[in-house]
């Protein structure tokens, strides 16, 4: 991880002479690395010749920690993977546990999971495109996006008492049922959000400067997206029609009518706009889920205090805001997981940075990085 950085490198140029490369060390404490990412950038003039991400600054060894905890105690850990969208890791982990232990989930719990995860998708994308816009200097857009995110977080707080690390989705269901009037407020939110999304679209994605900054920047071809294991909006913006909610439908998603937002060019602009338009699709899903939901239990009754699945292994994945988030669990029949591995979409997407940033300027580097929407809690685990 640690790399000593000479600030100036003398490199022999292809024409036989030599040119001076400026090495800029972006991060790990830098405003636009979205946490504690670090990129070692080799600049030739203002052009990036090599961008090498250095990660691990937020490595907490969650996979190792999970081996020392009971199945339930791991849930708070998964909150801290993707701290912008804790619900996803909660859910992916719980799905794996449920598969491993053969736990059925009440229908209402599945609907609540879908609702919170779609809300979480909006919240996460608001963070993603907001921060990405702030990287280009549009700070007010960031605030507007965060305003929407804040509304969702307030809804979450009412739901489960936490604003960031929800610990909401649990093996066998969810921790709390929706409080009185919550679903109405969610519907009111989706209604208001559609109007706000149109504003956000015009304010930033219609803006001439923003288009100039993002169009044609960090173009990812569809083939590369597949080969490099990109997923989520990052892959879809390149025209890869791949959404687990449609293509490996889980939970109650098969009952939902929604579109997959797919881009054409795979540049930073497409990735950002894909996220914004996905939020509107999420609103559709939420509205449908609320209309389909019936009262009932939200957690499987009578689960034992300590889950003790039989030996075996299970993998389950969900479509998180960043892509397909998978959890691979191995049980040896004890009360603790033998091994837990998180297939982190942010990790796989971030690996694309050297490919995408090369040949652009330093200013574009932050745009490319922002458009990949990395969350370092999940990258580093």
């Amino acid at each position, binding site marked *: 991880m640690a790399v000593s950085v000479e600030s100036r490198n003398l490199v022999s140029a292809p024409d036989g002479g030599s040119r001076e490369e400026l090495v800029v060390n972006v991060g790990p404490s830098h405003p636009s690395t979205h946490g504690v990412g670090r990129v070692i950038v080799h600049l030739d003039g203002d052009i990036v010749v090599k961008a090498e991400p250095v990660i691990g600054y937020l490595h907490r060894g969650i996979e190792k920690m999970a081996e020392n905890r009971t199945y*339930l*105690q791991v849930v*708070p850990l998964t*909150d801290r993977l993707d701290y912008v969208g804790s619900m996803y890791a909660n859910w992916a982990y719980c799905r794996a546990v*449920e*598969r491993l232990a*053969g*736990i*059925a*989930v009440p229908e209402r719990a*599945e609907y609540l999971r879908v609702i919170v995860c779609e809300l979480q998708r909006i919240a996460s994308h608001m963070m993603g495109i907001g921060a990405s816009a702030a990287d280009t200097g549009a700070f*007010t857009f960031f605030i*507007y996006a965060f*305003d929407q995110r*804040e509304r969702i977080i*307030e809804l979450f*707080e*009412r739901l*489960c*008492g*936490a604003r960031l*690390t929800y610990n909401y989705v649990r093996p066998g269901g969810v*921790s*709390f049922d929706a*409080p009185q009037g919550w679903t109405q407020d969610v519907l009111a939110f989706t209604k208001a959000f559609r109007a706000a999304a149109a*504003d956000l679209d*015009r*304010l930033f*994605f*219609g*803006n*001439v400067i923003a*288009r100039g900054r993002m*169009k044609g920047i960090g173009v990812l071809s569809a083939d590369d997206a597949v080969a490099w294991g990109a997923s989520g909006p990052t892959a879809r*913006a390149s025209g890869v*029609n791949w959404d687990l909610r*449609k293509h490996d*439908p*889980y*939970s109650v998603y*098969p*009952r939902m009518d*929604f*579109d*997959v*937002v*797919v*881009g*054409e060019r795979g540049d930073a602009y*497409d990735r950002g*706009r894909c996220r914004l*338009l996905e939020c509107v699709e999420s609103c559709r899903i939420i509205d449908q889920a609320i209309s389909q939901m019936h009262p009932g239990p939200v957690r499987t*009754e*009578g*689960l*034992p*205090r300590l889950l003790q699945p039989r030996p075996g292994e299970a993998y*389950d994945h969900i479509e998180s805001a960043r892509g397909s988030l998978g959890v691979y669990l191995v049980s040896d029949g*004890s*009360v603790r997981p033998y091994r837990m591995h998180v297939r982190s979409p942010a990790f796989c997407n971030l690996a694309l940075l050297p490919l995408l940033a090369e040949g652009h300027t330093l200013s574009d580097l932050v745009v490319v990085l922002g458009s990949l929407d990395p969350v370092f809690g999940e990258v580093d685990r």
Partner: protein
Amino acid sequence: MAVTRQQDKATVPDRTPTSVRLAISATDDFSPGLKGFAERVRSLVVGLGITARRSVSRPVTLKYPAEKVELSPRWRGALRLTGVLGREDVALIEGPASDYNGLIDDLYRHDRLPPCVGNCPANVDARGQSFLLADDRAAEAYELVRARNILPGVLGRICHHPCESACKRTYYDEPIAIRPLHRVAFERYAEHRAERVAPLPVTREERIAIIGSGPSGLAAAFDLMHAGFEVHVYEKEHAAGGALLSGVPAYRLPRDVLATEIADLQTMGMKLLTGVRIGTDVPIDHLIGEYDAVLIAAGLQVSRMLPVPGSDAQGIWGALDFLKAGNWKGGCGVKGRRVLVIGGGNVAVDCARVALRCGAAQVTLSSLESMDELPAHPWEIEEALDEGVIAMCSYGPKEVLVENGRVAGMRLQSCLSVFDAQGRFAPVFAEEFTDVPADVIVFAIGQAPQLAELVSGSDLVLTERGLLPVDGALMTTQVPGVFACGEVVTGPGSAIASVASGHEAATSIIRYLDGRSLSEGRVYRPVPVYPRYQPATLTGVEPARRRTVMPMAKGADRARDFRQVELGFTHLEGLAEAARCLRCASEVCVGCTFCARTCPDYAITVERIDDPGHRSVTRYDLDLSKCCFCGLCAEQCPTGALRHTGQYELSFYHRDFAVFDRHEMVRSPEGSRATGADCRGCGDAR
């Protein structure tokens, strides 16, 4: 999960993954030339317009402190601990019988009803019993239990303990042995009996007659005596006890235990008139005229018989007669003979075990239900099998094989299933027959009341099926002033359910004699539903946490005579078992340590003294700097003592090491520690 997923596929039309929206395309680009220039300028103006519009809208932030922050109703702050064992006692659930339902209902509404109490038909305060017993206050424990279940010594041996099935400790490791603790309390009460059992003052003029001295009759008598009435109990046999005496075998309930507890009631003032058969010796009308209220608690007297061919042959017994004979006469002519018991309930198991003890050569239990579906309690079946009873499950009786007017055996038919898909009784038989040789056949397939003689000459009218029409909630009959309770009302049931109906009848009688409306303002017993937990995994559970095992007589030895099967706890075992109680819903930390065990971040340490006979929490450390606010500990807390405060912000300002040790825990009422344990007026979440 795989299951639900398949259901999704099956029941819901799968939407094809082809609905794709090409959201971003070249049309997003600006037009070339001057038009494009105009579009570009327009995009800037539109942006300025949006920000301008937003700038005149109402700010979304708040003017603090002019505008108060409205916190969401459900939010998680730092942890707080309300009560601590050693400083605060667990509240006992006590009250006059006529208001007891109201008390229970109130607790239930406030989420403070422990599951053991809620699940008991008579709402015996098992939590209070454990608390007092662990404190070595056996006499108080006995009296607390007796206030509701009247005969703790008896029910401590024979009760089917619904309390234990609901015990929250099942979720953690194993349930508390509540029933054996009744017995412990009874045994320890022997030394206090002389000084603590005294006649109750008679404060009312009205007199009440109770017909039948079974559990329900005695329960009603107990309540009525405490209300100050004079109570006369009529019993047709020569000793009191009803079904407890005639139906319960002595190996489960020694006669002297029952006699002691009935004697206690008599000391309190209950007048017992044995050998009086109402209806023949004394007409019931006489009682109605003589007494201000009459309670019929006669129970079920006759066994139901199967109308199969040959059921009138010699050697056919009804279960009640068989048990009575076995219990009282010590033998019913089965010595050395083969006995076949038909039925799968508890009475059938009792018959089988009595037959063994009477010296039967071979006892077979034949039931319609399969082994898993048997209505008898699993522990009873297990004990019976231990003793050598042969079980033939999934067989229906077809025909009694008769030789010379005597029973020679029985033809049984295989039964495929007993209940249909809706759970109704609808047996399906296969055309397979098995002949079982037997000399004696006992039908234990149910009991019925026999009331015709009892009510003759009164205004009471029986239904066609011989039942007394009774309002099941108020326990009234057609005749004012005549009430009924027990199995007459409820049908065959458990002893504790009979006791519960006795309490209800007593409440009705008190209201009736007070001249109040029977139903107005009356609170009925809430029927709480508690989650049924899968048994917890016991790997790694320390021995001290395990349930005390009831010592039992060896299977082969005990089947020979009517000595007790369960040998009872010792004093120390009783103390230790009582100390295991988690004192659910008491809001007093009992140092169960489950919060510390479940904490993912080692933020909680609980230290306690946990000796038998002495139990208190000495130290409760909560390291808030480690706390991750997952809430698992508060979720685990059985007592509700540990929960989240409302002070979400405070939890971050005060992320320090909060130690509640015993002296510090006794804080002034206006204390304002970070954990907000005593903070008032800040809108606590509860």
